[in-house]
């Protein structure tokens, strides 16, 4: 509708413009031209009238001069007195000039009113000449022959006849002149009439045209008004839609400044529209890098036109924050690109998610309580605790018992799924020996194998690198794959468990059975929740249908993949792969105090050249070839500087650096970038010590590394010995300290003592109740020597002995002390000891 109106309106407008700009001036010009011509014709006519009058006057003057001459001559002839000749002479003197003037006047008109040759005027001149001749003859006769001769000449009438003729000619000339003038006036009148008609016609046309133009214009104004109304209605409708939208909708210019907002946005951020407009979005939404980079990334992203969904944090003016989900897209408007963001407050969703997680957790707990009684009772009965049972009863109780255990597994699995889905499953990632994990899994599964008459055959390749993983979670995956394989193996069959390195950077855990294989129809669903090849399997095999879904999630969260290969009737092979890491053991220990530098470069030749140059600079170099290995090794820590290439096989060194800078643990590591490209300001943003462009100036590299390493000499890692018999507590403490400390672990008084004999740490964290004694027994060892090691007692039990409490540097109680406090205490004690040593 709108576009149709627009088209019609545009066409009308075009016609009007053409008419207005071309036709109207043309008409006006014609009218003006005609009037102008009329005016100039009037002027010419007036001139002609004047001229004709002048000419007639001149003619009269000439005639008068002739009459004056005749009168004077006659007077002289009659009287003989010379005095009478005076007017004659005067007239005769003037006459030639007057005649010439008359001739000039007539010649001026020649071709206009009078023919070019002027026979009448010629005749007049001839007559005048003749008359003059007669008059001068008369004068001559009077002087020479006396009065009578002259009188006779006069009386002969010759002079009078000429004079009469002159009069006739003069009259004739005047009449002709007047006639010509009349003719001209008449012709002019006709022309004026034509002009009048033409002007009138043109005027009428102009009026018609103006009327038409006015009509068209008014129609256009109406159309425009209509269009405006439609547009207004559309805009109003859009505004109404926008303002009634639950989501805050804002548009931004590419620099991230808010251009429009809807009502929901005002409500969401608690500000009226005018306080939101022209402000940076980053004021209201927590964006990484204060929004600049983010917006630039958004503005530059190719797929932004498809829209992206981000979870961010919104900020009200009072400083309170709330979780938001922003769907961000790019629109191309005539005035340029704009970013639209539809922002949803997801506080409620988060709350519901939390409630659901709590509900699931509570329900599972509530289910476990009665299950404890049931499983306990059944277990006791089946286990023979109540004496031998009749065979039938034993069988029935066995069924009840195994199903009870299945129920427990189901609850555990549901809890796991819930945790994974809500992102709450946390992984304690540690360097891990996958072969050892497989061994333990096979051992643990031995009972089930025997029960099912299935043999596990383990094949672990020798000297495999380690992977990074959560031992408990990966054991869960292994157990799941093994028990699945056992369940689907024929009686007396074998399950082959193999750990190998198909590539140097990947370890594969493989479980192969010789069962029926995975049915074709089931392949797509095998990793879905509660998926089982057929419902009867559940009962037959005692699975929960969640195991593979959980296993795959766990492996994926480790950055690995889990999949299977199977041919019906040929058995199935389930396997997962994890990236290996360069573990601590393989990183050269800098026992000589040299700084350690991690070099990330995929080209082996360049890596060799660079590491040689770095070694010459006096640092220990450890080389990795990709982003994954670099981040794994950096996470373990212990490096004084990091040198990275930009283009790496699995990503960008700059992205890795960005991640390092965003993580408190790695934020401060000095970094150098090696790149084929120029820095163009990127170096500063990532806080690099130097950006070296290829080909690399090795001297500059050495200098930069020197600067990087020495600039951070103070951030030497603190060696901590943690004597603690609970592995979980130790893991938590090590995590909290890993940013600045290298934590060794001893789980008993005996191993603590051994560790102290091996090397003296900077700080010792001591638990009191240990398996083989009390932690205080170690205090003697620690206070030996001239450099006592600072001791923190970190125990659940209070240290009641005051003397003992005074002999340690800090006493912290497990449930009361936060881990941050512990980390601060460790750092403070290490720094104190350092400064003491320097003095």
């Amino acid at each position, binding site marked *: 509708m709108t576009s149709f109106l627009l088209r019609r309106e545009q066409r009308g407008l075009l016609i009007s413009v053409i008419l207005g700009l071309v036709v109207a001036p043309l008409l006006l010009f014609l009218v003006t031209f005609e009037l102008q011509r009329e005016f100039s014709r009037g002027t010419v006519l007036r001139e002609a009238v004047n001229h004709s009058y002048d000419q007639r006057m001149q003619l009269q003057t000439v005639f008068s001069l002739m009459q004056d001459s005749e009168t004077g001559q006659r007077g002289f002839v009659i009287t003989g007195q010379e005095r009478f000749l005076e007017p004659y002479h005067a007239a005769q003197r003037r006459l030639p000039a007057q005649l010439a003037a008359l001739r000039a006047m007539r010649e001026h008109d020649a071709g206009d009113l009078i023919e070019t040759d002027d026979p009448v005027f010629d005749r007049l001149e001839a007559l005048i000449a003749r008359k003059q001749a007669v008059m001068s003859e008369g004068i001559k006769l009077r002087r020479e022959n006396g009065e009578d001769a002259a009188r006779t000449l006069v009386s002969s009438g010759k002079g009078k006849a000429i004079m009469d003729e002159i009069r006739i000619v003069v009259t004739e000339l005047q009449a002709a002149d007047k006639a010509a003038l009349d003719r001209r006036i008449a012709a002019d009148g006709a022309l004026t009439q034509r002009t009048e008609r033409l002007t009138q016609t043109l005027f009428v046309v102009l009026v018609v045209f103006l009327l038409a133009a006015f009509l068209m214009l008014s129609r256009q104004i109406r159309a425009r008004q209509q269009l405006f109304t439609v547009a207004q209605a559309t805009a109003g409708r859009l505004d109404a839609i926008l303002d009634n939208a639950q989501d805050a909708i804002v548009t931004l210019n590419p620099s991230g400044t808010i251009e429009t907002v809807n009502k929901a946005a005002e409500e969401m951020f608690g500000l009226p529209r005018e306080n939101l407009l022209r402000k940076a979005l980053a004021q209201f939404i927590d964006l990484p890098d204060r929004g600049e980079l983010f917006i630039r990334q958004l503005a530059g992203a190719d797929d932004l036109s498809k829209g992206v969904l981000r979870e961010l944090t919104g900020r009200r003016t009072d400083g309170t924050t709330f979780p938001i989900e922003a769907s961000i897209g790019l629109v191309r408007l005539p005035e340029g690109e704009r970013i639209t963001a539809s922002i949803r407050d997801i506080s409620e969703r988060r709350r519901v998610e939390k409630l659901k997680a709590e509900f699931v957790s509570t329900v599972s707990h509530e289910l476990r309580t009665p299950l404890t009684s049931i499983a*306990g009772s059944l277990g006791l009965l089946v286990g023979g605790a109540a004496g031998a049972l009749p065979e039938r009863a034993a069988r029935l109780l066995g069924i009840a018992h195994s199903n009870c255990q299945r129920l427990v597994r189901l609850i555990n699995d549901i809890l796991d799924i819930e945790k994974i889905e809500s992102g709450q499953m946390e992984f304690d990632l540690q360097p891990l020996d996958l072969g050892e994990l497989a061994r333990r899994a096979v051992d643990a599964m031995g009972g089930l194998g025997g029960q099912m008459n299935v043999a596990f055959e383990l094949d672990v390749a020798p000297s495999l690198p380690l992977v990074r993983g959560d031992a408990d979670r990966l054991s869960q995956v292994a157990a799941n794959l093994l028990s699945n394989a056992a369940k689907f193996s024929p009686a007396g069959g074998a399950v082959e468990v193999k750990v190998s390195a198909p590539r140097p950077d990947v370890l594969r855990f493989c479980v192969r059975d010789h069962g029926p294989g995975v049915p074709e129809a089931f392949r797509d669903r095998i990793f879905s929740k509660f998926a089982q090849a057929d419902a009867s399997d559940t009962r037959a095999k005692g699975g929960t249908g969640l195991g593979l879904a959980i296993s795959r999630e766990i492996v994926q969260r480790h950055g690995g993949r889990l999949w299977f290969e199977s041919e019906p009737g040929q058995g199935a092979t389930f396997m997962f792969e994890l990236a290996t890491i360069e573990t601590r053991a393989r990183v050269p220990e800098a026992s000589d105090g040299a700084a350690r530098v991690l070099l990330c470069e995929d080209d082996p030749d360049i890596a060799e050249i660079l590491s040689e140059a770095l070694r010459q600079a006096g640092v220990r170099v450890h080389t990795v070839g990709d982003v994954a290995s670099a981040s794994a090794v950096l996470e373990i820590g212990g490096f004084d500087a990091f040198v990275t290439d930009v283009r790496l096989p699995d990503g960008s060194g700059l992205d890795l650096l960005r991640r390092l800078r965003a993580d408190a643990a790695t934020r401060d590591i000095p970094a150098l970038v090696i790149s084929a490209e120029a820095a163009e300001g990127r170096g500063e943003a990532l806080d690099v010590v130097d950006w070296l462009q290829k080909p690399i100036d090795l001297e500059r590299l050495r200098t930069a590394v020197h600067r990087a390493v020495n600039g951070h000499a103070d951030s030497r890692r603190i060696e901590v010995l943690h004597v603690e*018999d609970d592995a979980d507590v130790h893991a938590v403490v090590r995590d909290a300290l890993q940013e600045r400390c290298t934590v060794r672990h001893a789980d008993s008084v005996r191993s603590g003592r051994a560790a102290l004999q091996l090397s003296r740490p900077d700080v010792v964290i001591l638990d009191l109740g240990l398996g083989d004694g009390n932690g205080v027994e170690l205090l003697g060892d620690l206070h030996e020597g001239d450099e006592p090691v600072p001791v923190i007692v970190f125990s659940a039990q209070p240290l009641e002995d005051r003397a003992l409490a005074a002999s340690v540097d800090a006493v912290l109680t497990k449930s009361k002390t936060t881990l941050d406090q512990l980390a601060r205490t460790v750092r403070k004690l290490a720094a104190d000891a350092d400064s003491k040593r320097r003095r």
Partner: protein
Amino acid sequence: MTDLKLLYVDDEADIREVATFSLELDPGIEVRSAGGGVEAFAMLDGDDWRPDVVLLDVMMPDMDGPAVLARLRERGDLNGAPVIFITARAQAEERARLLGFGAADVITKPFDPMTLAQDVRAILAR
């Protein structure tokens, strides 16, 4: 002959009974149980009997496991005897939290009734 006096505190009577049954499979263990902290304190007040180890349920009405543990310590009933928590919440964070109260270990429900006594002895042997 009994060599280990064990106090079991749990508000679920059924579980108390099953656990007692399980623990007494070990002839060396003498089990006394209580349905909550108050009952346990009353029992200890009326008797000279003192446990060598205490098994404490975590989620109980009125007083939860950690509260009972704190009170037992305050009252001086423990005299160094280790305390093991029993909980239906199996998460690692929960375990770490409970260990933070100074427990010797945490056993997750449902426990294996045939090995419960062995498990307790293994913890005490550490």
